């Protein structure tokens, strides 16, 4: 880039004279990405980021017409999908992209887990990554209520009700989430605030830290990388090879997203976001109340737990179980001592597999048994 050719080159020089980006470009050009049979998993972080960018863009467009409140939310979403030019497309892309972002983030997290990429010195990258997934799920939970339709209302009622089951602090957190003891218009404005202000701010900060860490530390190598001969260690330049591959996948993801949004603007089968009828707290709940698919395993587990276990409420035990499981999962880089020292820790692979099987089985059961 030292050559000054054409308009682009002159523009680059003009910027470089002012903000010194050449050092950054040099750094990127020298950065490399390991090539091995698990390299494909490196791309899922980028895909999650792509869907997040789509979420921000479509979310801003939806904000132009969405009006929070028990009397306006449903009507404004209906207006968006029926009257606003391409409103249906923006909502469809926002909904599809939200689900695909969580899916990509889950795949990214489990690929990092099973390739042991969380090991030293990338503990902080793992922690921020788990934090991002948690924030993304909360994004989904808060966004689910915003259309103020029947299913969203009752699913939010059940979801927030679980928090109320916590001893001592349950009522406090229930009121904090709902804005009152029931799901009302106050809950929408609260969830709206979380969805468009608090969560994006938090997410941006954590995402920035996560990306800086990824750039500073580079891509993680496989556990047995150090034991390989130098001739077996193949790498590719981060810029432009890896970036272009990332871009290629982003374009494929965009194509898939466009096809899904046009052919299935309201989702597929049980994974749908049909607007349906407006929420009415005074009508009986619909026969099937289901949360978003990424909460289904937890929802189903809590449903299957007995009412009481040794005189303790089953639901409470489930909530505590998931809480402890989440803490363990978040802190796994500090527990997995073997991998930290370059050895293969089989125990954690088994734990990871058990978690994946548990999530899959409970999710499938959740949809079959409903």
């Amino acid at each position: 880039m030292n050559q000054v050719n054409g308009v682009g080159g002159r523009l680059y020089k003009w910027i470089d004279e002012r903000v010194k980006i050449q050092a950054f470009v040099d750094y990127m050009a020298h950065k490399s990405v390991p090539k091995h049979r698990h390299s494909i998993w490196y791309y899922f972080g980028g895909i999650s980021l792509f869907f997040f960018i789509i979420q921000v863009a479509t979310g801003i467009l939806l904000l132009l017409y969405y009006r929070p409140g028990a009397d306006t939310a449903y009507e404004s979403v209906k207006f968006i999908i029926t009257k606003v030019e391409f409103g249906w497309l923006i909502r469809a892309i926002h909904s599809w992209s939200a689900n695909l972002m969580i899916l990509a983030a889950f795949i990214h997290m489990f690929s990092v887990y099973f390739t042991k990429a969380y090991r030293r010195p990338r503990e902080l990258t793992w922690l921020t990554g788990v934090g991002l997934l948690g924030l993304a799920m909360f994004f989904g939970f808060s966004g689910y209520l915003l259309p103020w339709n029947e299913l969203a209302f009752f699913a939010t009622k059940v979801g927030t009700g679980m928090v109320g089951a916590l001893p001592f602090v349950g009522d406090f957190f229930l009121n904090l989430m709902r804005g009152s003891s029931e799901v009302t218009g106050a809950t929408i404005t609260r969830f709206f605030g979380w969805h468009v202000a608090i969560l994006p701010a938090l997410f941006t900060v954590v995402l920035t830290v996560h990306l800086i860490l990824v750039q500073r530390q580079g891509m993680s190598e496989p556990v047995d990388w150090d034991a390989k001969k130098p001739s077996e260690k193949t790498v590719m330049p981060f810029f432009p090879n890896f970036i272009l591959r990332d871009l290629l996948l982003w374009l494929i993801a965009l194509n898939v997203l466009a096809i899904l949004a046009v052919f299935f603007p309201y989702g597929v089968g049980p994974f749908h976001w049909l607007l349906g009828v407006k929420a009415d707290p005074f009508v009986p709940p619909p026969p099937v109340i289901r949360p978003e698919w990424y909460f289904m395993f937890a929802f189903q587990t809590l449903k299957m737990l007995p009412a009481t276990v040794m005189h303790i409420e089953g639901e409470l035990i489930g909530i505590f179980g998931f809480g402890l499981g989440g803490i363990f999962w978040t802190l796994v880089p500090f527990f997995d001592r073997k991998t930290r020292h370059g050895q293969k820790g089989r125990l954690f692979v088994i734990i990871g597999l058990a978690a994946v099987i548990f999530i899959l089985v409970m999710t499938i059961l959740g949809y079959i048994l409903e």
Partner: protein
Amino acid sequence: MQRLIPVTAVFVLILGLCFSIISSAQDNCLDCHTDWEDGENSPTQKWTYDIHNQVGLTCADCHGGDPTLDDMDDVRNSKGYRGLPSTAQIPQFCGRCHSDATYMKKFNPALPVDQVAKYITSRHGVLLGTGDDKVATCISCHSAHNTSPASSPMSSVYPLNLPAVCSGCHSDAEYMAEYGIPTDQYEKFASSVHGHALLVNEDIGAPACNDCHGNHGAVPPGVENISAVCGSCHAKVASLFADSPHRAAFEENGFPQCETCHSNHDIIKPLDNMVGTEQNSFCIECHSEDDGNKGFETASVISTLLDSLVRSEQNAIEVIDEAEIKGMEIDDERFALKDVRSSLVESRSLVHSFSLDEIRPELEKGIALADVTRINGLGIIDNYFFRRKGLGISTVIITLLAVIIWIKIRRIERQPRNRA
């Protein structure tokens, strides 16, 4: 021991008095009749669920006599004994209480007390007065010992049960032979729009026999008051008909108003082809092209406009259905279709004015609305294809970009310094 004797005597005396009081309050009618009567249809068995029993009345309250007596002959000879009434006596037997407003207020202040007065004026009552004991009396419809309020689904006169009760006599050709009236009313009613609503859909808002004929004062409606009977529910249609030129013409010719076109017991769901100048229409039974009045032409125009509205509605529905099948949002159009349907219903009702000035604006409004809805639906379907074309173009562009990047990657990776 000696002290115990007077105490025991007092105790036995008190016990004897108690037995005496209990025994005097006892209703011996039920004790004996329950022993003698078998089967679930026996009066004593049915009495358990009878409204009179539930409000605390006893056998003696209707049949009289002293229920505390053990011996039946003593009961028959006791004061106020009325026993079993004859058929002719039944209205007055029941009316002894049911016509007494002061007495009935104790049980249900809202209950009418004019049943007997009405009954006497009914066809049943008139015939009973002439000594005909085959006619229906109170117990024929309400039963004797199993009476329930008419609002109770258990009652024989509950709307869903009433047609069967009436048809018990009125469909029995042998029993009704001497009266010279048809016995196919129930059959016709069951096949009618009213009968379907009541007996099949169990819609108790639909009319049963008593809603047209009256209950206690049941009479066949005369030619002159049929429109009043039908109009008690179909008020708007009756009002339109009353203001129409047909009213005077029907009266002049002795035609019953509603029945002439719609029949009586076998009223079918009205069809649009009942109006017009085609073979099935009722209009041509009186009107013809060269009869010198404008009835024939009016019928023809009404029929044409009605057909147009029905076709326009159907076309709009087909377009909206297609848009819905294509997964498009059509809530507003469905709502507009409801307005079209309202217009059609209103127009069908306005037909009874037999005036083009009244009907035409509503029909034309409906046709215009249906056409707008259909055009909107076509626009939605166009939008569906526009979306797919847009998707096709954007997919091609994105794919092209992806291919360019892929070629670029290949080219870069062929260069030795970038090769992995």
